[in-house]
């Protein structure tokens, strides 16, 4: 599949390299060229420097031909705008945004966007690590 990833930090670069090894065609966008240092030498995908929410940068990255667009940059606002540009302007069939703020994540879910919210996921994992699975559920209620 053709996958475009916005944000080449820890998560973006890890995912980019995994998907590349699995045989997907990967393009990574980052606003800072130094971020591509996260990618190891064997990476066969392409890289583009620019703001991932920019219509033209997305075009250069081939979002209009991509099956999947992942917004994994650090800013919630940026990620939210980027997936909506990918979806509504470039007609990307599948988009996912990382949104740190649980409340904003809920808003974007209501707007029909696939959202991954690390805060609630980590919250649950930390509870389980600290209290065990049963206890953490009880603590949550």
């Amino acid at each position, binding site marked *: 599949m053709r996958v475009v990833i916005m944000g080449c930090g820890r998560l973006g670069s890890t995912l980019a390299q995994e998907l590349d090894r699995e045989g997907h065609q990967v393009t990574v966008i980052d606003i800072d060229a130094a971020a591509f240092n996260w990618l190891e030498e064997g990476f066969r995908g392409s890289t583009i420097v620019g703001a991932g929410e920019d219509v033209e940068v997305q075009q250069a990255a081939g979002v209009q031909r991509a099956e999947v667009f992942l917004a994994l940059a650090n800013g919630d606002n940026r990620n939210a*705008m980027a997936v909506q540009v990918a979806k509504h302007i470039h007609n990307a069939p599948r988009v996912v945004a990382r949104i740190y*703020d649980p*409340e*904003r994540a809920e808003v974007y879910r209501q707007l029909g966007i696939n959202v991954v919210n690390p805060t609630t996921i980590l919250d649950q994992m930390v509870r389980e690590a600290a209290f065990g699975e049963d206890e953490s559920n009880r603590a949550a209620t």
Partner: protein
Amino acid sequence: MYVILVGGGKVGRGAARDLIEMGHEVCIVERDGNTAWSLNNELGEVALLGDGAEIHVQRAAGMTRADVVVACTGRDQVNLAVAQTAQTRFNVPKVIARINDPRNERIFRSLGFHNTISATTAIVSAIEQEVSAGLSRLTQLRSSAFVLAELVIPQLAPAVGCQVRDLNLPSHTVLALIVRDDDEPEIPGPNTMIQPGDIVIAVTQPQHESGLRAALTGET
């Protein structure tokens, strides 16, 4: 009305000053401490310090009871986020978004935000109006595919002396108004004669602007 402005830069500050003068209740959400301080200094206690894209800050600003929210920061991704949360989360009746990069107008419109302000587009169109003797686009008509255009008829235009019915106007185009120096503004009919110096206001679509310009001014 209660108006919340997110972003206390030149746009937010100017709007706040006018709105307060008009008697509205105003809150400016500004994330920079110095800017917030100087806003309070100039306008009274109007500024709330915080990131206006954060929902807890929006709640603190009283977005649940806001009549109007204006997202007017210098960053389009923030303005979009503010506009979407104001609408989706707080059901604010009127949401206005500032667009900094005109290329982003498309995404705001396709997400249903037609109440947008773009200084860049306004300045560019004002420059075009000054520079070109032909046609200048005044505004897009809300969510429609139509625009309002203004043309000034040159002395030697082929349309001079013609009646409106004889003009070779493109489709989807209507001449809405003719303004002449010493006359009352006139709604042109089929028999109206085009005169040099006429200011013609027309409703058309962007793809027909050049045809309209050619029909009225002879310029291509």
